[in-house]
């Protein structure tokens, strides 16, 4: 009889350990997946830019400094690898693109062209997708970091080789979707 109770308790403890371990691994994988989504969206945006720049150039060829800013920011964004670098480059590119669209405002012919309108829609949706994938990533990082720091999962973080992850923070006061949430 005692044997059964002891075995039962051991089984429960093992199950508990497995559950904690798996939870940490799962959270860590969701952060990776969320990061992959950010990269997909950033790549999408980078792919749109040459076409956009060419289109605007066709109507506003002398706005060279604006084009340069976009091209430089794009180059930085495509080479960045760490979370902080990517975030910084992403913020710069967002600013540069905003400048480009502001330039376009001054050219009614450009604004009316079908090509520009469809590019603008693509860019708008991609900007939103970047913002949302960033938000989703940060939510996942928050869940993971909470688990790494709170009992009981914190006891298993070392064993599962799961550590706190870095938030994706963009310096952009205009960013509406910046996840500034208090509890």
């Amino acid at each position, binding site marked *: 009889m005692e044997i059964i109770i002891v075995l039962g308790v051991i089984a429960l403890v093992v199950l508990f350990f497995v559950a904690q371990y798996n939870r940490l691994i799962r959270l860590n994988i969701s952060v990776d997946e969320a990061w992959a989504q950010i990269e997909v969206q950033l790549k999408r945006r980078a792919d749109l830019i040459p076409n956009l720049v060419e289109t605007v150039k066709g109507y506003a060829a002398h706005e060279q400094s604006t084009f340069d800013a976009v091209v430089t920011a794009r180059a930085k964004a495509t080479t960045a690898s760490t979370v902080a670098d990517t975030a910084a480059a992403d913020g710069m590119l967002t600013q540069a693109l905003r400048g480009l669209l502001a330039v376009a405002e001054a050219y009614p012919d450009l604004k009316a062209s079908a090509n520009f309108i469809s590019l603008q829609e693509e860019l708008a949706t991609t900007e939103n997708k970047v913002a949302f*994938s960033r938000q989703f990533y940060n939510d996942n990082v928050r869940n993971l970091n909470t688990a790494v720091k709170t009992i009981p999962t914190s006891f298993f973080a070392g064993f599962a080789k799961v550590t706190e992850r870095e938030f994706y923070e963009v310096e952009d006061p205009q960013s509406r*979707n910046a996840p*500034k*949430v208090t509890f």
Partner: protein
Amino acid sequence: MATHDFRAQESANKGKTYFLLASMGLLTGLVAYAALTYFGAGTSTFMVPIAVGISLIGVWGSYYGSDKLVITMTGAKVIQREDNPELFNVIEEVVIASGLPMPKVAIVVDSAPNAFATGRDPDHALIAFTTRILEIMDRDELQGVIAHELSHVANRDTLVSAVAATTAGAIAILSDFLMRMMWFGGGRRDRNSNANPIMLVVSLFVLILAPIAATLLKSAISRRRESLADATAVSFTRNPAGLRKALEVLAADSTVVHQKSNAVAHIWIESPLDGKAVSKMFSTHPPIQERIATLRAMESLGQRN
């Protein structure tokens, strides 16, 4: 201030749903008990499983095939990306924010602005929009509506309402059976003559009132799920203003267009809601003004931070 936080809103609404579902279970038990008291063990032991079984078969079919069923009922046409790239763009944005798989998208030709979500799980989800809602809403408002509908998907509201409909259905069938037996088979009661007369009266009351109570609980659950979907929608978009404006557009519109599209609205409001496990937006409680006020409170909270 915590009560206006969308996370607090979410957990409060979830808690209330569990409470309501538990009440529903309790009510079923009560009806079964009343049947037992009134008719004795012989009748009740086969009646209760039969009632639950019939209800389960009825609701489960419509739950499992909810996405296909609703398409036939509402005349919704599933569309592809090429048909409306801009709508798909906005949906994809919210899908990324929610981490859900991309749902099927459908359009219903209708002069009333409306939208709904259905499907047994996130992998079989369908969200549908009327042609009118796509005409009158700007991008932010549409984003709010999409977030609300995807919240129903994320919160498994098709399943919740299927469970609620099953229990309410079982209770209705059971008390209907028992009421009929009372009129036509009153003789059975005599076998059970040693039962407490007060208990018999109480049981009778339970049998009469249970279906009404079940219906009330069912709508209370549905209202909770609507509030929950509003809160979850904000957790997706972090933009309460979009959904709030959308609700204001709908609130303003229903007073104007309601009469004109009554016939069509009837099909929409009735058939999807009749236990067919559909979360239909903006037609039932909670009052739209209350939802707008809650979202406004979230907005002011966001500005303060």
